[in-house]
């Protein structure tokens, strides 16, 4: 059965000035899957990820060519509202970056600017469910007024995930969300991704092969700005088609 992709990149090129960072990448992201982007450092994973919600717009030298769609709609169409696009395609960054505000306000900020809650009760409800979904509720329920920056790194990252899902996006982009975390916090985030799968399309960049194998259904292997191989995670990790992919996932790369 042919699934329709939630997001679809077709022949995407990205340039930073003269630096050709992404070269003719085509990739489909499906709503019910977790898609992992793997590849050596500097191969353009973050760059590609940032194209999917147009975060590259704020980098003056960056130029994007090609076509990226969300529900068949071109997101680089001048008529598209970028602000709304970023609400529909949320992002979690490599380094946890909570606002220097209370835990409550961190979560409530997104719903507030998009007018998602009609009153304080609905807002409370939204904050609580987001924290619950992100698996942080039990740890912070007694101190919602404490600053978000006072949490531990792993808690901060889950706070950022809670903040992203509070806006109710359709796609969540995660750029190495566990790179600054210890194995326990990492396990929690992986569990969380597993929980969130199905409700949001998830694209995750990771350097951890086991993590990619554990959490994703689709995997794309990037190398020097190109997608070398893209397919079901099971296939990529057990039976890669390309020699480069095999070298990389078995750690012989370099």
């Amino acid at each position, binding site marked *: 059965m042919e699934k329709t992709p939630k997001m679809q990149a077709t022949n995407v090129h990205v340039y930073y000035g003269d630096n050709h960072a992404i070269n003719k990448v085509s990739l489909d992201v499906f709503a019910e899957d977790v898609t992992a982007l793997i590849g050596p450092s500097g191969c353009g994973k973050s760059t590609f990820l940032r194209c999917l919600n147009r975060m590259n717009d704020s980098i003056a030298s960056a130029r994007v060519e090609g076509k990226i769609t969300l529900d068949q709609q071109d997101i680089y169409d001048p008529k598209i509202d970028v602000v709304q696009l970023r*609400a529909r395609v949320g992002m979690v*960054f490599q380094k946890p*970056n909570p606002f220097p*505000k209370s835990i409550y306000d961190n979560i409530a900020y997104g719903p507030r*600017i998009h007018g998602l809650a009609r009153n304080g009760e609905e807002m409370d409800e939204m904050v609580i469910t987001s924290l619950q979904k992100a698996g942080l509720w039990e740890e912070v329920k007694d101190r919602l007024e404490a600053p978000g*920056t006072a949490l531990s790194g792993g808690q901060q990252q889950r706070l950022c995930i809670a903040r992203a899902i509070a*806006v109710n996006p359709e796609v969540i982009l995660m750029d190495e969300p566990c790179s600054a975390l210890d194995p326990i916090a990492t396990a929690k985030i992986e569990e969380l991704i597993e929980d969130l799968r199905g409700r949001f399309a998830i694209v995750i960049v990771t350097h951890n092969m086991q993590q990619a194998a554990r959490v994703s259904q689709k995997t794309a292997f990037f190398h020097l700005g190109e997608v070398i191989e893209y397919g079901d995670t099971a296939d990529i990790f057990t039976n890669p088609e390309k020699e480069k992919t095999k070298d990389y996932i078995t750690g012989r790369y370099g």
Partner: protein
Amino acid sequence: MSKNTAVHAPTVWGSEAMQNRISARYRKERRFRLLGLFAILLALSFLAILLFTLGAKSIGGFFQTKIELTIHFDRSLFPDLDGLNSDEASLALTRVDYAALIRQSLMDRFPDVRQRRDVRSLASLVSAGARQTLAGTVRQDPAVIGATQDIWFLASGDIDSFVKGKISRDVPESDRRVKDREVIWIDALDAAGKVKVGFNWGFFSSGDSREAELAGIWGAIVGSFLTLVVTLLFSFPIGLAAAVYLEEFAPQNKFTDLIEININNLAAVPSIVFGLLGLAVLLGFFNMPRSSPFVGGLTLGLMTLPTLIIAGRAAIKAVQPSIRDAAIGLGASPMQTVFHHVIPLAMPGILTGTIIGMARALGETAPLLMIGMVAFIVDVPESFSEAATVLPVQIFLWANSPERAFVDKTSAAIIVLLLFLILMNGLAVWLRNRFERQW
């Protein structure tokens, strides 16, 4: 690989050459530290000298000599107040010859002084303001008319300087502003316990005056305050808006580069140039009221603007990009990102820059001379459009006065100005700590 290890002998960390290098490094470090210490001590000693000399001189400005006289409120000199309402009564009281009361009192104390000229110089022992003092006493309590009362009056400026020892009695009479006769009188009064030196509250409550003993800085303080209010209201919003726009919204191109260069240039332009600008544009073109805090504030605002913009931009630039990413990633518009996240985080830096700019404006003299704030103004200003003067200009004016008493006033005014500056800079530090401690 193997080649390299062959060329490099293993490092002997304990060798003598290594020890020498280490001690040389320590010597260098010590020398540098001494040099730094010396620089700081030098700067501190200059500051100490300044504060010490100022402080020593200013004491004379904060204290004032007073003379006690026994005044008989001779009923024959006063109008009949019966049947007058209060307005008419106070009008009638202003016409009373209070100087005669003071003259009479002094003549009673020194019965041998009879010559007209001598009486006049006898009367000039006390300040010209003594008449106002008397008028005030009567206005407050008309019942004193007909009674006799001991009242303290300010001594005149020269007598004040003499009592404080600023005018030496060893100087030959011809070179002395206080003549031998006056010395005898004042000594006699002093012997009778009728002379004292007290804290000069009037210094903090009155405006400028030609008479040193009456001159105060309240007018200048109010003028400075009004001027700074205008400066702040003008330059803070404009400076902040410009900084935010340039940092967050303006495209990066030749034109914005040019603007940036110009702003940096303006920050270094001598302040008097802004005074000329104010003179030509605000007074000449817009016909705004001369010498007013409004014009002064705008002129200083123009002067402060570049500093504010530069400080604001630096503060905005220092906000972590990750916070911006977080907001944008949630779908906040550029405006929302700036106003909800960037500006609050940049606020401590912006406020510090603002207060330092304000402190500089508070101490500024030259541009205000250009727009006529150098006028001699007795009245304490009550609005933004009235003629006013400011603290540093007041200092400038007093410093140019020949009377000895004004020298002390100058130092005292400088001390007050320094106190305000310390207060403002302290406020800047406090605000910064407060805002930063929040998270």
